[in-house]
């Protein structure tokens, strides 16, 4: 732990002391000598070993979140703790009992110390490891939930939602059939967005339908400022893609490309294939005639676009490891194109 965990430190000390008392009791009962002398040796060795190991552990792990130093350093620390404990504890015991030699011979004393020290260290180690893994898992779960929430927030952007609803409200009064069509697109869009986290793959034809829902909603809002084209060859309809993979790219094209531009523009989404060294690859392109990257502030200013791209990249990496490409190209005369390639697979 980055901060010193006083509670577990003291708890370890207490458990060590109790364990030492048990050893002293066992030795006294088996007739190895007076109980107080046994206790002095046992506690002396135990307390010193505990201090060395636990303080050493805190010092060695001060930089990371693991409870124990990894690998040989952990073993070395325990060995050092036990050795120091034995030497110092024996000295304490001898000092307490006067000049009496070690009551049950140096060898068996050392053996007991090593056995007890290793045993109790192993117990603390596995306990710490379990707690660390638990915390690690909880953190991973929190991260995943947060990422899902962020994705949802990006897709259900309130500005988009309220503007769409405002347009719907107008259409309900002026053009009910068109209002109905728009509502159907909104429903399909919401259903896809809210359900996207569950399915891992869907056919490219479905992906294009979801893009059409979104683009239709935007077309009502933007009127003649938005033109779009979806090119999906018949043979690629069954190609397998993660749901809403292209959505953030189309959204970026509108938000950062067309929306800031007075005259609006055109968005084209294209699918194709290209032979690769290890079989066919699917090529997906999102092109726009918007303001282009050059006109925008550097990435730091557009957290939306940054997040969208990072998210697409992350999803592709999860599915294909490093076997994918994502290229963002700024057109010389404005406009942006994003091209993705990954291995072509059909949905069953």
């Amino acid at each position, binding site marked *: 732990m980055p901060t010193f965990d006083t509670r577990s430190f003291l708890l370890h000390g207490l458990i060590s002391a109790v364990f030492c008392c048990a050893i002293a009791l066992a030795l006294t009962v088996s007739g190895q000598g007076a109980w107080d002398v046994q206790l002095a040796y046992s506690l002396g060795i135990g307390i010193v070993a505990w201090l060395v190991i636990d303080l050493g552990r805190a010092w060695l792990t001060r930089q990371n979140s693991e409870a124990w130093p990894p690998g040989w350093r952990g073993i070395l620390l325990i060995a050092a703790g036990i050795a120091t404990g034995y030497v110092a504890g024996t000295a304490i015991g001898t000092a307490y009992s006067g000049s009496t030699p070690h009551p049950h011979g140096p060898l068996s004393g050392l053996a007991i110390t090593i056995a007890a020290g290793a045993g109790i260290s192993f117990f603390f180690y596995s306990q710490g490891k379990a707690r660390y893994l638990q915390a690690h898992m909880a953190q991973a779960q929190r991260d995943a939930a947060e990422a899902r929430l962020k994705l949802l927030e990006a897709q259900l952007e309130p*500005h988009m939602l*309220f503007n769409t609803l*405002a347009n719907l409200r*107008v*259409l309900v009064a002026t053009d009910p059939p068109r209002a109905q069509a728009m509502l159907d697109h909104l429903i399909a869009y919401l259903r896809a967005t809210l359900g996207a986290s569950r399915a891992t793959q869907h056919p490219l034809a479905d992906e294009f339908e979801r893009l059409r829902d979104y683009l239709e909603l935007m077309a009502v809002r933007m009127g003649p400022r938005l033109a779009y084209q979806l090119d999906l060859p018949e043979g690629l309809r069954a190609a397998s893609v993660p749901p809403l993979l292209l959505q953030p790219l189309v959204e970026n094209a509108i938000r950062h490309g067309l929306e*800031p531009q007075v005259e609006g523009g055109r968005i084209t989404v294209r699918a194709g294939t290209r032979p690769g060294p290890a079989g066919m690859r699917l090529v997906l392109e999102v092109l726009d005639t918007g303001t282009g990257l050059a006109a925008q*502030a*550097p990435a730091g*200013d557009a957290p939306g676009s940054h997040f969208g791209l990072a998210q697409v990249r992350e999803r592709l990496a999860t599915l294909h490891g490093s076997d994918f490409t994502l290229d963002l190209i700024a057109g010389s005369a404005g406009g942006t194109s994003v091209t993705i390639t990954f291995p072509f697979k059909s949905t069953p």
Partner: protein
Amino acid sequence: MTAAPPRALIAEDEPLLAAALRHELAQAWPALQVVATVGDGRAAVREALALRPEVLFFDIRMPGQSGLDAAAELADAWPAGQPFPALVFVTAYDQYAVQAFEAQAVDYLLKPVQAARLQKTVQKLQQTLTNQALEATVLEATMAQLRHLLAAPAPAAPSALLTVIQASSGNQIHLVPVAEVLYFEAADKYVRVLTAGHEYLIRTPLKELAAQLDAQTFWQVHRGTLVRASAIASVTRDEAGRLHLALRGRSEQLAVSRLYAHLFKAM
């Protein structure tokens, strides 16, 4: 109230919403004449200057220029002595903007526009227009409000102040100490960084830059200009009433926007 019917301009980029606002206004305020509907920020400024309506409805998010920037530009370019129009901002969802509007008592409408809410706004507008005595102070008050709205902190304001500007030219990056900078000026897609002897270009937007500079050291004198206060030698008023700054260390003059003219008063 003047004899002529009041006139309004609507700036809204979504055609259906513009038509709807027009329609709702016809119900809520039959006497009001909507003289123009425009779809972007620059057209809003141009048309407002040409038509001089009494009421403006500005959408916040518009292509070209935001409603807020358009309002600031308009306030700056508005002919002196003419009553400034009553301004109403329209937004679908913008929690920061709405908080700022509340704080500055700026009139705003939320989309979708509801009839009851619009009725309230219309009543307020009618009162403003009737109250002749107020007219002289409308521009002053609007400018004060806009100053606050434009200065509203970005959602994630960086805390540390900049000490060095990194400007690239070719394959080199120049490190320019902020202490040497006399002024920053927004120029199209870039910001010009000017020292006594040199000029550099950077791509960090002026607004982002302003948040990382000490507001006491660098004064905003125009929407596109941040100037080192201690580098200002003198302020001159021209025949049109505009202020111009002369600098120590540079020969050119800098124009002061009307929005920020209040900074310069003799002690």
